[in-house]
């Protein structure tokens, strides 16, 4: 099976997964107790007519299967419906907010890479020494802290006591510096939560390479340790590092939800939480569709890159 065929196959396999995921979310939301029309209007008094109108506007009087198919059909055309709470097209809100979450996730990921890869390499090179040990423990401590708790502690220390960074918010149309300034604490909190994975995978990938015969040969020929690490080992450790990306994506997305909540960043994560709390079905459905699609496509991309870089892997 060629690469193109492999990609096509994987893409087709994604279809039932994505549809299944949307169906799952749809059913879960619609089986929950409570009348959406009332939830839309809140607890205050509303005339019967208003409630009828709401049902009409949001297709709530259609049978469930029809609601789902209508939604799916519209979603295929890029229309994810209108938010119950904000009464705005969900697609529009997602388009508006995704850059914020993307910037947060990306900076968190970069921090994890910037810290985790060197730490992993050092850990591997100094295998079974104190350095290795301490690195592992520190990295694991990062992943063991609830990300939101870490965020709170960072705010307490760096905003409240030291005043170095803003306590919350995101400079949407600020300068690059503004944005970095706002992003620093959230990105640290988010990055720390995934760094252990980076360290672990870099370490074991490096170890695999360092134990290869040709590295031993190079060593015995007197090639310097630095050249071995940068010249041989690092290049070969690239593949496993790529896999981390795939594994970290879900963690990054989940972490973003918590980080955005702690730091008051109006990204997709906080939109989701608010939508869940307000039972804003269209928004929850739209967001989960987007999140699931991103997840499966990123995983596919990682797999394809992986096979592309490493032709030894078979396509099945």
């Amino acid at each position, binding site marked *: 099976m060629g690469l193109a065929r492999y990609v096509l196959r994987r893409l087709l396999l994604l279809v*039932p*997964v*994505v549809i*299944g*995921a949307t169906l*799952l*979310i749809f059913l*879960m*939301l619609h*089986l*929950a107790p409570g009348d959406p029309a009332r939830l839309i209007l809140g607890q205050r008094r509303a005339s019967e007519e208003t409630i009828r109108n709401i049902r009409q506007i949001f297709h709530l009087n259609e049978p469930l299967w029809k609601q789902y198919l209508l939604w799916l059909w519209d979603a295929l055309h890029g229309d994810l419906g209108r938010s119950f709470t904000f009464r705005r097209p969900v697609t529009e809100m997602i388009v508006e907010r995704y850059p914020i979450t993307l910037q947060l996730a990306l900076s968190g990921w970069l921090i994890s890479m910037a810290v985790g890869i060197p730490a992993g390499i050092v850990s591997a090179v100094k295998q*079974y020494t104190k350095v290795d*040990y301490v690195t*592992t*423990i520190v990295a*694991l*401590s990062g*992943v*063991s*802290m*609830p*990300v*939101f*708790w870490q965020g*709170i*502690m960072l705010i*307490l220390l760096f905003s*409240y006591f030291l005043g170095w960074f803003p306590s919350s918010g995101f400079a949407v149309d600020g300068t690059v510096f503004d944005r970095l300034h706002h992003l620093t604490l959230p990105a640290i909190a988010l990055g720390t939560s995934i760094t*252990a994975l980076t360290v*672990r995978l870099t370490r074991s990938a490096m170890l695999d390479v360092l134990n290869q015969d040709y590295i031993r040969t190079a060593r015995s020929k007197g090639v310097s340790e630095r050249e071995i690490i940068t010249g041989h080992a690092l290049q070969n450790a690239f593949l496993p590092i790529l896999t981390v990306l795939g594994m970290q*994506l*879900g*963690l990054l*997305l*989940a972490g973003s*939800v*918590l980080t955005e*909540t702690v730091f008051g960043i109006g990204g997709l994560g906080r939109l*989701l*939480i608010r939508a*869940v*709390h307000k*039972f804003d079905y269209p928004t*929850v459905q739209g967001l*989960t569709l987007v*999140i*699931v699609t991103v*997840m*499966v496509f990123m995983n596919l991309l990682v797999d394809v890159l992986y096979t592309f870089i490493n032709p030894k892997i078979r396509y099945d």
Partner: protein
Amino acid sequence: MAQQTQPVESADTDDESALGGVLSGRHRRILSSLARHRGGLVGAATLVAVVFVAVAAPVIAPYDPLEQFVGPALAGPSTAHLLGTDMYGRDVLSRIVFGARNTLLLALIAVGISSVLGTIIGAAAGFYGGWIDEALMRGMDVVFAFPSLILAIVMMATFGINMYNAAFAVAVVFTPQFARVIRSNALSLREEEFIKAARTSGGTRRYILFKHVIPNGISELIVQTTINLASAILIMSGLNFLGLGIQPPKPSWGYMLANGRSYLLQAPWISTFPGVAIMIVVLAANIFGDGLRDALDPRNTERVR
């Protein structure tokens, strides 16, 4: 051409017979290498200590965790209240000690359900293959396509917010991970000759599944369980933080942490210490899981720390 036969006739009995014949060779090897893995031991010891604290909570805790105003409200750490008091004047230390119970219990329930579900699904998929595999694993793919916290959030909103639903949500979210591990294990076992032998003996699929396939996946299961235990505690504390938490007045660390948040500036101890407790347990479970993983990895048997 006929290939050259490899002489493999050699007894592979392990040197260490201290553990006796109760455990198979593989498990003995794992245990003994774990015993030499210092980090794994520290992790295990910490977990045992926490379990002890949870079990002996009534003896250890200086106060009733539910009783209000055993001390002044929002009082900082002192000799009377080592970790201070919360907004109702309840003793934070006592609540943390009792909180270990709920925290561990819920995490165990979550991981227990998911490991049982995941094992059955994964073993059935891997062992039966064909359309059963296809159907089960596509279903698992659907669940797996969600970031776990996000699916748990939506589930909590749907099924109602109480601690058992939180555990159930986490269980569902973890099931695919178990199913995948067990399935790949079952797939490789399917080709093992002792499975074929059981089939020529007339063993039904179900017999083989429960008698051979699942028991032989136990070690992988244990590692996965340990690591997921850590994640379960984190996810549940995340749910608490997002307001999808546990019912009061039963203390759990996640709830204490989330609840103390509003008092952060004047009484940071209410949130800080439960956070530290979570971190210690999760860290211990992670280190222990790492140790187990190393021990299970045949490449590592010779070079354990």
